[in-house]
């Protein structure tokens, strides 16, 4: 594992958290019910908090003077290395909870590994906290998928469509590239093939309880980790970054 790969691994964790956190924060004030508005905003806050800690750590590893804000606000879409799943638009509430369920199941296992590894103690500390938060996120999203899938014919059909659409973005979570392989060999990151098995078991159990059909394995979108994103990310970043890019010296 080179220093650049070590940095990239931590940056990617932060990118997943930031992009999904930013997506979810757009629900603030638009939730279908008050409790859900609060829940999605709380989850967004957890994710943005994780991103801040991870970016601060990445900044330390990179040692080029780019702080957490520079990493969040002054990188273009090509420099973001998040998975394509997390940048997909919020869509309707069903789309949002399915995306959250798919991601949380993956992130929970990934953080569980990261909390136990000994290659980087700072990552372990951030992960130990994130595991507990992700437990809540996973439970919450899974319960909604079950409620909507096993709900009315309309909610069932809508959430089935969400599952069918977003399924093609889940394969990328388990496709290792050079960074993943090198970091797994160094003991820092989990073996993605191992994670895939536990992810599938959890997700299939949730879909079955929700009376939803599990999509067939097939072609999967890929490229996020290499900076090749869907069109949606640029629009999201444009909105997220406009203020600091317009007023680079603005502070809180």
């Amino acid at each position, binding site marked *: 594992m080179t220093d650049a790969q070590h940095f990239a691994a931590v940056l990617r964790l932060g990118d997943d958290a930031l992009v999904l*956190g930013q997506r979810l924060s757009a629900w603030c004030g638009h939730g279908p019910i008050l*409790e859900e508005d*609060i829940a999605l905003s709380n989850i967004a*806050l957890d994710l*943005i908090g994780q991103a801040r*800690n991870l970016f601060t750590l990445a900044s330390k590893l990179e040692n080029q003077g780019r702080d957490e804000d520079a990493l969040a606000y002054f990188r273009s879409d090509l420099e973001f290395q998040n998975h394509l799943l997390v940048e997909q638009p919020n869509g309707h509430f069903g789309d949002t909870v399915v995306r959250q369920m798919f991601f949380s199941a993956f992130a929970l296992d990934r953080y569980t590994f990261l909390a136990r590894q000994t290659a980087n103690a700072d990552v372990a*500390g*951030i992960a130990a906290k994130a595991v507990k*938060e992700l437990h*809540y996120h996973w439970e919450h999203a899974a319960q909604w998928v079950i409620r909507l899938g096993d709900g009315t014919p309309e909610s069932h059909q809508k959430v089935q469509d969400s599952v069918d659409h977003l399924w093609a973005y889940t394969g990328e979570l388990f496709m290792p590239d050079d960074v993943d392989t090198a970091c797994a060999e160094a003991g820092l990151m989990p073996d993605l093939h191992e994670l895939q098995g536990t992810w599938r078991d959890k997700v299939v159990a949730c879909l079955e309880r929700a009376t939803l059909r599990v999509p067939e394995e097939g072609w999967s979108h890929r490229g996020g980790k290499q900076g090749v994103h869907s069109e949606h990310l640029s629009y999201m970043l444009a909105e997220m970054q406009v203020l600091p890019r317009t007023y680079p010296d603005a502070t809180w």
Partner: protein
Amino acid sequence: MVTDRERIAQAWVQVRSINDPELPYLTVEEMGMVRGVRVDGGQLVVTITPTYSGCPATDVIAEDITTALQALEADARVEVVLSPAWTTDWLLPSAHEKMKANGIAPPQGKSADRAFLTGQGKVVHCPSCKSDQTTMVSAFGSTACKAHFKCNACLEPFEHFKCI
């Protein structure tokens, strides 16, 4: 000549005067957020651990402690440490009592117990009427650390400090 020991003791007095902005009846010490006070290279340093990754109160707390410390020594600073991660196991017993007195059901059990973590199979007592007939309305409440409950006996809504 003021010894390091005396400087640390004075710093603790200042730190103990800082309250959590979200739970103003609790001090940051009772929250279990203060990891230690030390003198590092002649500088007074207080280390704190945030409760939740994205808790906005952490920044306010760090600022409040810094201001209080700098009344003693101009170059004193606060250091945020993330490892080991904060857990509700670190809340002082007095924090549990004060939460109850302020209408919040404190966390139960140990955070290592997964059943307590996600609220499955645990009974949360109503802080008003003590009834065990309560229902969780939402795992996410007014702040990251609290869940939203209601009491089926006295019908009061209340908050539960989540076990993490």
